[in-house]
């Protein structure tokens, strides 16, 4: 199990940040992802693997200008 | 189209071009006012000067930028409002700005610097 924005989510081996965003349908482009308080650059979403028990924060910036 | 072609492998870093350019167009010798920039790199020198690609033409809100009869991209200063979008969007960063100049400036392929370049790293070309 991992936590995403405080909510529990099923984890599977090899799960990437991109997988999480797709599963949650987080399609907003202006997103900051932090795993266990460490920031992940946007160009590394596809390749960054998430580990079991990780605390993931997906921060959407403000929209609706 | 007329443009200043560069052969950086010939450059010796004398900086004559920069001083000549700023002297010619801004009446003072100041590398920050030159429309050509020579920078030292690991393998020698890099020369940054406008290649007249014209991408800036479509960024200008007042139609101040256009090509002259020889294809050289020129700024009509009477129309320029100094928004600097051309400088911001130049793919080679060859549109220059300076703290004490309100409007941007670029190489207009006059060729004066090429006359002051001993190793002939700068050549005015026409195709």
């Amino acid at each position, binding site marked *: 199990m991992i936590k995403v924005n405080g909510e529990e989510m099923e984890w599977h081996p090899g799960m990437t940040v991109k997988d999480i965003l797709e599963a949650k349908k987080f399609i907003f*482009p202006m997103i900051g992802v932090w795993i266990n308080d460490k920031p992940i650059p*946007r160009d590394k979403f596809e390749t960054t693997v998430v580990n079991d028990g990780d605390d993931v924060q997906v921060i959407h*910036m403000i929209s609706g200008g | 189209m007329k443009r200043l072609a560069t052969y950086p492998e010939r450059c010796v870093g004398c900086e004559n071009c920069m001083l000549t350019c700023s002297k010619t167009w801004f009446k003072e010798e100041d590398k920050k006012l030159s429309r050509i920039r020579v920078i030292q790199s690991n393998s020698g020198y890099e020369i940054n000067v406008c290649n007249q690609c014209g991408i800036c033409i479509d960024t200008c809100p007042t139609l101040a930028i256009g090509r002259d009869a020889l294809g050289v991209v020129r700024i009509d200063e009477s129309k320029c*409002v*100094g928004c600097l979008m051309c400088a*911001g*969007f130049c793919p080679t960063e060859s549109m220059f700005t300076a703290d004490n100049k*309100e409007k941007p400036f670029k190489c207009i392929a006059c060729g004066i610097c090429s006359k002051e370049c001993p190793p002939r790293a700068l050549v005015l070309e026409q195709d």
Partner: protein
Amino acid sequence: MDKMKLLTKWEYKPVNIYRGYAGRTLYINISNFSFQEKPVSEDMKEKFIGGRGFGLKLLWDAVKDTTKWNDPENEIVISGGPLCGITQYPGSGKCYTVFISPLTEQTYDSNAGGYFGPLLKFSGWDALEIQGKADRDIIVFIDGDNNKVEIYESPFEEVSAVTVTEALHEYFADNEEDKRNISVVSTGKGAENSYWGCLNMSFYDLRRKTPRLKQAGRGGGGTVFRDKKLAAIVVKKRGISPSSNNPADLATLQQVGLKLHKEIRDLDDQQNRMRKVGTPHLNEIMNEYHLLPVHNYKFGQHKDAPKIHSKIFEGIFTQGIPDGCWYGCSMACAKAADKFELKTGPLKGRKVTVDGPEYETCAGLGSNIGVFDPEWIIEANFYADHYGLDTISLGTGIAFVCECYELGFLNKEITNGLELNFGAKDDIMELIHRMGRGDDEFARIVGLGIRRMKKIFSEKYGAPRDVLENIGMEGQGLEVSEYVPKESVAQWGGYFLTLKGPQHDEAWLIFMDRVNKQLPTFEDKAEALHYFPNFRLWFSLVGLCKLPWNDIEPADNAIKYKGIEAAKVPEHVQNYVDLFNAVTGKKITKEELIIQSERVYNFQRVFQLRLGKGTRKHHNIPLRAIGPVFPEEWEARKDYYDNELKAAGIDPENLSTEEKIEKLQKYRLSQWEQLVDAVYKRRGWNKNGIPTIETLRRLGIDYPEVVEVVKRHLKPEDEWES
């Protein structure tokens, strides 16, 4: 166009603009054609900064407590601000128009891009103040090149934005290129018959060879304009230069501007694609997050939403043209559809350039009324601009009408033949044309706005008032803008605890609240509802557009900063501090920036109070804004809403959908009251939403006339327990 008839002329002395200010404002009384040059004091600059601040200050001095929107005393005040008209930084051409609104019966302030704000200032005026009413349609011309103001009799039989604007750019320009030195404020015939009148402000597009229209859309400014018999206001000023504002530090302006241009060059494509698509990049995003208003905010998503996907508009908008609405805007989001052939109405068959649609129009005159046809939306956008109607109020208002029709509260007899179901494209377009023409009683009633429609539909047509109150999406008399607020307590506040009505000028907190879950307590929400409205409203004081603040962000923003700090885009906030200091020569900090805004925020709050509003009871919220009203809304997201009920400590088992709805409403209404308390407290207001004397003092706006208004309304029982 024939030579216009000159009614009066007034000459003025030129001034030098210094550090972003002309140092004076222009007052025109169009009842008696008198003119006045009013000096701007240091205190006025210090406390009110400019723009909306100046507008509110001038309006305060001009009206009585009892002034109504259609009294001659009401004013239209237009002002940019000290940063308005710089050319180096994206989004620097904005101005605000301040007036007493027909919809909300209190002050409204509406912003627009275009060239009017800068050209007005460089003509020598920090604000334009128009009071009175003319005895015939007039055109006011501010000739900044020759230092005079002329008032002409309007030659236009019908005042409609597109035709009037085009004609006046032509009339006052010496040649094609000169047209960019002109800006026209206009509205349309629809503003004569509706309280949803908008103002259009033009700029000339040299490449398209046509004027473009930006809108000060909301609040009914166009209605006030036509009530005063203004047909147009024109300003002309040649010779805009990079230092027209006479800034203290031009080099910094250049550096910061260049930095933003490069940021946009490098990152816009991966971020919000503003240069390609503009604000409609939000269409599919809002749909995905259940935030796209569908069928009068019943739902946040619709299966046909892909038909209005941003990619479709990208294909319609002409690409590769610098679409900034003032010089230097590389955000370039003023997209347009060119050579668009109109299929209906008075200009049927004509191929026109349509400004937009913006996201709000795609949603308001689209999903919210059940229409998912991009070409229909574009045509509706065009006619809304031409008739001078606010597309947001029009969309949300018509959505209300459609729901009333589907509920059987209205019928074909009442609507004079129109079958106004959701998605009834042809009939809805006809309704818009009728609003434009002003020849139909029902269309006229619609145009009075949701608040008055509720009264009329119940009194005249027997519709149940309580249901209308629940589904009529308005706050303080203004229609809600196009985001579904239901599922975010913070956004209830963002819409319904505002100064002027439910528009997202002040706050957009939905992601922060519900997706990021960064505002768990009421205090957290209140803190966000203190910081963001104050930060966002700062732009209104200085003449800037807020889109370059957060519709583009530095590459490392989300890495360097976490959480709410990242959402503030700290590097851009610093840009704005630097820009302000570079123009004015002052040395403000990020903290002072907020206080500048908080000062005017509270002044405006007291102004609303002065006009008979501005207390807790006026911060109304309809039930549709806080959750489902009818079973179909619950059933559309059954699991989600059942979970919401569980999270509220209520077991959904064995409850009918109606019972579940009622229980959730009761729970959420109690949450609303707690939010209101927390927000008022944080803002330094008492329980009734009135700024305390202490707050006025802290902000330096304890002027005698301001204190006097507040003192009349302060009651000991409204104080917080210590």
